[in-house]
């Protein structure tokens, strides 16, 4: 009974995930695309929670659906994007996209052996936040610290590419 319920929950989340992902790509207005992406994030969080990764699930919802997507919507608002300008119906592109996705799905089906059960790697028991923290500061210390450098470089890059140099300063520098 429990397995039936958990698989039912999984399929509900998975169907929603796929449906909203398609809507994200196919949506005409940027706002509805962004909102579909929010829904996608929430469903991913749901699936993570059914996998007992409660912390990751909550982070998924809070960080992506909460913070990042609000940023997206702000930007869409600031850029004043309206309906996408008339898009030509490119059947060849659409068909090749569908064929590509179908092919990938077929490979996944064969490669991962969908339907046959596969033993999962052992999941650490107990409080997952504590385990996560311990992993980050022991086994994955180096990549964790490197992420800080990555963020620094990303911040520098955003400022470099977007910040307008004031004319006076530019003239001074150019001399």
């Amino acid at each position, binding site marked *: 009974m429990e397995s039936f319920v958990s698989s039912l929950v999984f399929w509900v989340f998975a169907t929603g995930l796929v449906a909203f992902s398609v809507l994200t790509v196919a949506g005409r207005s940027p706002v509805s695309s962004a909102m579909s992406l929010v829904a996608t994030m929430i469903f991913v969080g749901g699936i993570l929670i059914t996998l007992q990764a409660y912390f990751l699930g909550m982070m998924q919802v809070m960080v992506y659906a909460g913070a990042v997507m609000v940023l997206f919507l702000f930007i869409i608002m600031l850029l004043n994007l309206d309906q996408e300008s008339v898009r030509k119906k490119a059947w060849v592109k659409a068909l090749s996209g569908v064929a590509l996705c179908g092919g990938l799905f077929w490979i996944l089906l064969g*490669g*991962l052996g969908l339907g046959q059960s596969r033993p999962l790697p052992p999941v650490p028991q107990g409080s997952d936040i504590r385990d996560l923290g311990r992993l980050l500061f022991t086994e994955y210390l180096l990549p964790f610290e490197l992420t800080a*450098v*990555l963020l620094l*470089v990303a911040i520098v890059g955003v400022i470099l590419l977007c910040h307008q140099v004031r004319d006076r300063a530019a003239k001074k520098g150019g001399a």
Partner: protein
Amino acid sequence: MNTVATTLFLQKSQEPMQWWNLPEVWWIFVGILLLLLEMLRPRRNSASIAKASIFAFAVMLIASLGWPTGLETTFFGGAYQWDGLAIFFKRIFLIAGLATTWMMRKCEAQGIQGRDEFYILPWFAVAAMGFVSSVGDFVTGFVSIELLTVCSYIMVAFYRSDRFSLEAGAKYLVIGALSTAFLVFGITILFGTGGSLRFDQLANSLASGHQDPAVTMGVVLVLVGVGFKLAAAPFHWWAPDVYHGAPTPVSAFLAVASKAAAVVFLLRLLIGPFAPLWTQCQQVLLALAGASLLVGNLGALSQRDVKRVMGYSSVSHAGFILLGISAGSQPAMLSVCYYLLAYTLATLLVFGVICGMIDKTGGSLMRQFNGLAQSRPGVAWLMTIGMLSLAGIPPLSGFFGKWFIFASVWQEGMYVMVFLAGFTAVASLFYYLAIVRHMFFEKPADGRAISSGLSFGYQLLLVVLAVATVAVGLVPGAVQRAIYALIFNL
């Protein structure tokens, strides 16, 4: 203090290395220091930061001679490996970083607008590549490659008022995201089947379960991700456009350093987790090598822009390198390292000449180089040396690079691939020599000679690169023995 001295001066210490003594830690430190200096400097003056950056690269390159060789240790619980292979590639990255920053200093007039981070970003990119060359688990590898890629995005789009630079940046961003998706997907599948992200543990678990189709798929997806970074066909479509649009020093950096980082990541994978799956990997690598050789060399034939030619040329060189790797033997690995060294020097030389001349010729089209030999014979000859080495003309290092790779592939009995590679190498002569023909035998279109010269420092860089290209080719055996001693700890 003693360890500081060990890092900075030419002393080999017997005491074990510490994590804060690793070169990458120092490189990141230098990068942050330069960022702080830029913030604190009194007025917007690009020269000081650029000079400091070049000087620091030179110091670090000299300090690299004092690195402890013949020592294999790991740090951070196996996430970082220190060995001869890592040292070889870290030195290549330092050479590329030094030459790139030098070229950037030359190009400063074109669109930096006082944004001195142009000279600082290579530090973070070089540090990221250093971590890639020492990588011991997939998470570290992934984060380092991302750090490298983010630095590259920024540098490619740096001339933001230039349409081509922005287009190249956008294209590189999209392609980079796609390749990252392949890489992460593959890593996820391998983690799911192997149960670990550490290379040594993964090698053990994949050795027992290598019949699993999921493992094959994970491996193929990871190789596809690496193929994008390597600009190997059929994942090369970004290379000519991005090399064309990016600032010339950045094109050089992508062609040399970014490719070397992908090569070392591939080597780390093949001697680590993918070792039990060698036969499957070999097939994929051979297919990529053949496609890259054909597409790179034939695609370059119809190009009219030197930077685009170099883009296709870099695809074809990825093909040669992959061919060497797919031979899989110890001599093959040596020949790949030698090839990479020769390729690095010659490519930096060619891009250095383009970078020095581009504001004088007005562009990088081949016909804009017409008559360069009459007005600037020295520069034309330097360019010729670079082109001939890339084409593989005998006395130069590029020839011996190809020769060693052909020999090791022939030994493995893959005769067809040798013939294919030989055929495409001959085809490549046409486009490399086309540039030489334009420089020596064509009259300049508007009859205007290129008069203004290059600064002494920049000439010095080009001459040093040219001399190194020739010297590595004059004593190929000695260079190969040195690489052998370094990598196999003798």
